[in-house]
């Protein structure tokens, strides 16, 4: 009998081995796959088991956390939600995350292995760290000035520090409170439905994700292309363009809103926004030259991240000469995000170089130790430094005694360019009022801020002045704040 007992015992040993091997299979080898199964609620539960880290503006958190006592426990709250919604985005148990909440989710949620003191050990134990903080580049006074300036009108404001690429203000209006999307349940779903069906599209981030025809503000790009290509050697020399201008290959006539544009100089054309001159220069530069020049500003780039993705600004690569002429004054298929136009102003202000724009200065652990820092990086050299110097002069002229006088700031050097973009079938839509500008305090080495403002429902008449009328004052207030902050920092 002993032999058979031993054999039965061996059978039990086989069963034990089968259990252990199977346990190792499920718990180690297939664990990752099972953990990542979308039906596995653990990911969501763990994710919200601890308060998220904070998003910080100007040293103060603009986010918070509330213990809901639910399975997905900690819900996000927002201080001044509508003001910072285009920066933070939302973090919702039901609808996921967007913008910085999305781009820096691993830090905020505490899953980033860099947050752990011993990353490798952490990987083994799959431990979770308290959520880290995200420090943004946004300056609260500028953000508030821009938001107040738009005053609920549909539009967007982007302000950049030209030398570094730091995004100082990022406003989209009308906005919403991302806090209403935190949590689960009926109320959240209702808020989502309401926000999505609102005709004002409050959840649309107009600063990064909306593209508008840039209108006359695009003339800065065309001017840079003409100067760099050598089509214009002297900005004050006549350009030999007729007024009115017949679009090449058609009998369609391009009019001017301004007077005295016939045969005007580039300087005059920027100062008073002559369509005919700029259309002619664009055609003279040629399609290849124009495409090359605009792409150096960032048009047609689908890969820009700040760290949230940015919509592509468009300039067609294949066009007939008449389309090219229209595109050269920011019409036809040419579209740009407010961020893109702020980068154009920034290029002029920063010797032709565009610093890569960024919104997150650094991320830290909950204890304040820096995890990652976004450094200054060059994005593109949009134009030669000498072209930039010439364009600075022309933009200053436009503010001093041109279309952009509403942006003038006493005691500062301000350069700007207005724009009014026609859109809709037969240009029947309400035009978009644009203003791009930069400002430099007296006695400083370089401009402190570059800004782009777009207002969708410009009330003023359909002239170039509406860009100066609706958008320029907002840009001025934002720039004033920037100069004040700069002066404060200098002491």
């Amino acid at each position, binding site marked *: 009998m002993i032999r058979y007992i031993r054999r039965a015992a061996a059978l*039990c040993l086989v069963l034990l081995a089968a259990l252990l091997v199977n*346990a190792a299979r499920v718990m180690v080898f297939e664990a990752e796959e099972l953990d990542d199964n979308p039906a596995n609620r653990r990911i969501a539960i763990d994710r919200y088991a601890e308060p998220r880290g904070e998003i910080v503006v100007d040293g103060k958190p603009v986010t918070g956390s509330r213990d809901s006592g639910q399975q997905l426990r900690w819900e996000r709250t927002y201080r001044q939600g509508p003001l910072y919604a285009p920066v933070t985005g939302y973090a919702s148990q039901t609808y996921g995350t967007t913008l910085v909440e999305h781009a820096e989710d691993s830090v905020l949620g505490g899953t980033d292995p860099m947050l752990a003191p011993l990353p490798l050990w952490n990987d083994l134990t799959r431990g979770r760290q308290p959520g880290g903080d995200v420090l943004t580049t946004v300056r609260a006074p500028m953000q508030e000035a821009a938001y107040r300036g738009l005053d609920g009108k549909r539009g967007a404001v982007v302000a950049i520090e030209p030398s570094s690429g730091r995004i100082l203000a990022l406003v989209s209006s009308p906005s919403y409170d991302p806090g209403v999307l935190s949590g689960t349940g009926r109320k959240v779903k209702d808020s989502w439905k309401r926000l999505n069906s609102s005709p004002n599209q409050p959840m649309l981030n107009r600063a990064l994700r909306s593209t508008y025809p840039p209108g006359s503000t695009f003339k800065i790009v065309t001017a840079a292309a003409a100067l760099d290509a050598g089509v214009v050697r002297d900005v004050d020399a006549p350009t030999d363009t007729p007024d009115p201008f017949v679009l090449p290959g058609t009998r369609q006539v391009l009019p001017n809103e301004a007077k005295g544009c016939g045969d005007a100089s580039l300087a005059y054309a920027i100062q008073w926004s002559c369509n005919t001159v700029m259309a002619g220069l664009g055609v003279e530069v040629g399609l290849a030259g124009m495409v090359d020049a605009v792409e150096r500003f960032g048009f047609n780039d689908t890969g820009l991240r700040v760290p949230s993705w940015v919509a592509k600004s468009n300039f067609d690569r294949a066009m007939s000469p008449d389309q090219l002429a229209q595109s050269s004054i920011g019409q036809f298929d040419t579209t740009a995000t407010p961020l893109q136009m702020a980068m154009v102003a920034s290029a002029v202000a920063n010797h032709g170089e565009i610093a890569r724009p960024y919104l997150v200065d650094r991320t830290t652990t909950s204890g304040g130790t820096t995890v990652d820092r976004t450094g200054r990086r060059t994005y593109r050299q949009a134009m030669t430094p000498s072209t930039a110097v010439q364009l600075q002069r022309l933009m200053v002229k436009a503010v001093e005694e041109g279309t952009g006088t509403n942006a003038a700031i006493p005691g500062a050097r301000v350069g700007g360019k207005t724009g009014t973009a026609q859109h809709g079938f037969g240009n029947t839509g309400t035009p978009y009022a644009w203003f791009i500008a930069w400002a430099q305090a007296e006695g400083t080495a370089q401009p402190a801020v570059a800004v782009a403002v777009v207002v969708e429902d410009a009330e003023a008449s359909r002239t170039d002045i509406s860009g100066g009328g609706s958008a320029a004052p907002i840009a001025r207030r934002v720039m004033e704040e920037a100069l004040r902050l700069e002066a404060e920092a200098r002491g």
Partner: protein
Amino acid sequence: MTTPRTDAPPPGVRIPKRRGVELSLLVCAVLISVSGYAAVGLARSGAVPPDAARYGAGLGLLALVAHLAVRFRAPYADPLLLPIAVLLNGLGLVLIYRLDLETPNDQAAATQLVWSTLGVALFIVVVLLLRDHRTLQGYAYVSVAAALALMILPIFFPAVNGAKIWIRIGGLSFQPGEFAKILLAVFFAAYLAANRNALAYTGRRIWKFQFPTGRVLGPIVAIWLLSVGVLVLERDLGTSLLFFGLFVIMLYVATGRTGWIAVGLVLASAGAFLVGSLEPHVHSRVEDWLDPFASIRAGEGPGQLAQSLFAFAAGGMLGTGLGLGHSVLIGFAVKSDFILATAGEELGLVGLTALFLLYALLVARGYRAGLSLRDPFGRLLAIGLASIVALQVFVIAGGVMGLIPLTGMAMPFLAQGGSSVVTNWVIVALLIRVSDSARAPQPDSADTGTLAPVREDTPFREGAS
């Protein structure tokens, strides 16, 4: 059959009793359980549960009383059996308490503690009253009658969760089938011990197999078929699988005929296939086993087995820590059938392996007692009882981890369930009893003269009592 036997070792030979070892292991078992209890409290609310001391004192008292009973009446018993049982029961209470925190409407730990106390009480009763395991041999037919009665009884009570295996009286529910396991093991052991020569050496030879005569084989097959039939009626497939495995193992150990195992496996496979394809309840479980994630793809969310696999995967190598897992997502049956998932999630592969090894040690100690015993009945009883534990652990652990189709059964000592805890305590009591006989110094047959030396292959007299 009662045999006079001296409990004292023969002069000159001192066999270590190892009761001190048992006591210190018991202290460890209680300490580990109390630490687990404290860990749950620390993880959940940052403080040791206020009743941790009471819990420790209660468990310690149970362990101490059981230890004294063993010391008094089974001084040579295997010193590992009782500590393992206390540790498993203690850990089970911790896990149930931990899950209670998530399910405020279903507080089970207190009830489980009452049942555990009852289990230990029965353990003591068995150890005190049953002086010699061979007494049981005389009650073979009483056992089988009682087993069948217990198994048939629930048919007259309403079904719970699709299975008619419960008796509900007042607020208490009891699963009599659990206790039938022991009775059936006693019967199998007695019958096979008495008839093993006839089963092994007589009968017709067909091709390579020697079949015993129907007169010998008939009754036991009939009993087995009857019990399995009743269980199928009651939809208690886990237990029918257990009975089948128990029957085959004991038959094999008694006769040494590999053919039986082959025949048994063929029959079992055929039966399993038939039941699996015809019975909808079982069919769905087989489907679930083959593809645990089908319901997720169908958009109906994860089923219990998928949730269980998620829980095990979440545990990984070291586990989330007691109190920090989410195995409550498994839903209903998380404290009974699926309690191992909580162990896996919160203690990790390391903790689960330790648990499996505890069970393996318990089984191995049973087998060891079987090997050391001289009488075939004792041997078969020890093997049968140990195999019950082994099979239960394999069937339930394999089920909740996707190794085999899921059958509702209770993890010994760990799972919520009064009848299961009580039954397992009785199993341990019987193992204590047989291990005591196995390790006790053998009385010199020349001195006593009443007991013939029992040698290997000596046929045992049938029905002696």
